[in-house]
């Protein structure tokens, strides 16, 4: 296709620049979401009564459409990257919190008892025993959150040039150059699949005791979105 990489100058970025922008806008929210959900999930595990209300609040927040969320935030944060990243962070919570809670809860009582018997305090037991065993569930959640985050960033184009590769889609429409949209769709899909693959590799590195491949998948909890949304 002709002009596949001729990025219109109004985007003020090269193709690689857009990719970098996209990765930053998609991944910072996932990171922030993880940092918020780890302690939040731990609270939900410790105080069981807290879990249902937390699930309800995150589910209701998740039901707010991204475009609507962006638009309402413009009033407070302006047409900036932050306006796109705040809703994406909120969305990751509804996937990550149940994933971590289920993962930590799935640690067998015998294992916890063994750790206690070996003299592990609550903090050390959490960090060295419960969290590593919960890694497959957490990574499964991160995979869903990451891929949907990469896709949702592009909607930011609708609130004024904050969608990274989504802006390319917007320009494809404005200038009637379908090849730009093809470029954007392929790039975003490739980014998502790449990020997903990286997370699988991370899981294998973090859980060397688990068999890889088909049997490892069975060991995963059902997709976190089951419980979550």
């Amino acid at each position, binding site marked *: 296709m002709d002009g596949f990489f001729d990025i219109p100058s109004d985007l003020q970025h090269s193709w690689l620049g857009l990719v970098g922008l996209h990765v930053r806008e998609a991944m910072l929210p996932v990171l922030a979401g993880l940092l918020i959900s780890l302690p939040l999930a731990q609270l939900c595990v410790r105080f069981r009564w807290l879990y249902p209300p937390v699930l309800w609040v995150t589910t209701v927040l998740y039901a707010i459409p991204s475009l609507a969320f962006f638009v309402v935030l413009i009033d407070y944060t302006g047409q900036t990257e932050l306006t796109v990243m705040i809703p994406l962070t909120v969305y990751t919570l509804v996937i990550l919190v149940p994933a971590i809670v289920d993962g930590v809860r799935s640690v067998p009582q015998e294992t916890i008892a063994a750790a206690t018997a070996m003299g592990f305090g609550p903090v050390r037991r959490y960090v060295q025993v419960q969290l590593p065993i919960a890694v497959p569930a957490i990574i499964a959640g991160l995979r869903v959150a990451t891929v949907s985050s990469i896709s949702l960033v592009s909607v930011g184009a609708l609130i004024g040039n904050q969608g990274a590769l989504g802006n390319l889609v917007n320009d494809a429409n404005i200038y*009637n150059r379908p090849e730009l949209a093809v470029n954007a769709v392929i790039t975003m899909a490739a980014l998502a699949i790449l990020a997903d693959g990286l997370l699988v590799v991370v899981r294998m590195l973090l859980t060397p005791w688990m068999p890889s491949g088909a049997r490892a998948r069975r060991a995963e909890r*059902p*997709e976190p979105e*089951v419980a979550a949304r």
Partner: protein
Amino acid sequence: MNVLNFINAFFSDSAHWQGYDGIPTRLGEHVQYTLEALAIAAAIGLPVGLVTGHYGRGGNALALIAVAGRALPTFGLLVLMTLSLGFGLINVMIPLVVLAVPPILVTTYEAMRSVDPAPVDAARGMGMHDVEVLFRVELPVALPLILGGLRSAAIQIVSTATIAAYVSLGGLGRYIVDGLYQRNYEKVVGGAALVALMALATLAVFWGITRLTVSRGVLRSN
């Protein structure tokens, strides 16, 4: 609260309640898009998920399809479809279905797999054949999770159908997109509030469906 003032102004303006660009029309369009996309996605995802889940085969293939489906950006796909096929509802349906099939497919599969094997064996021991086991034992037990997948898909469709307005179709996104172009913030926030309300209504509908269709015993054990 600024936003609340905008919402109040939008809903109290009687001009927003009538005519072609009125709230009833736009809401009707949005509901129509949502139901159509959900019906198509369910028609694809449910049977495939039920059968693969019943036989326990193809889980890895499904996971791959789900990742591929999620990886395709809905907004990009929508514009691409419109640029290549021209104006039409099918351009909106394809990206929405691509968006909605993965959650339905994966949750249905996982729901069927998570059914306790003991009652399934008991049913077989009583002489039930495959189809009976699927519809009379596995499906009722898996139903809450399956409905969860459908709910997740429905909410994503409701949220995402707003971008149909970007390619000059109707629906509640019309207010958001038009409002942004016209710098009419009241309209933008009003549209956003309507979509959020519709998403919440979807949650409520699925809560009701779950209460009505899932058997008491299954509900209690969850």
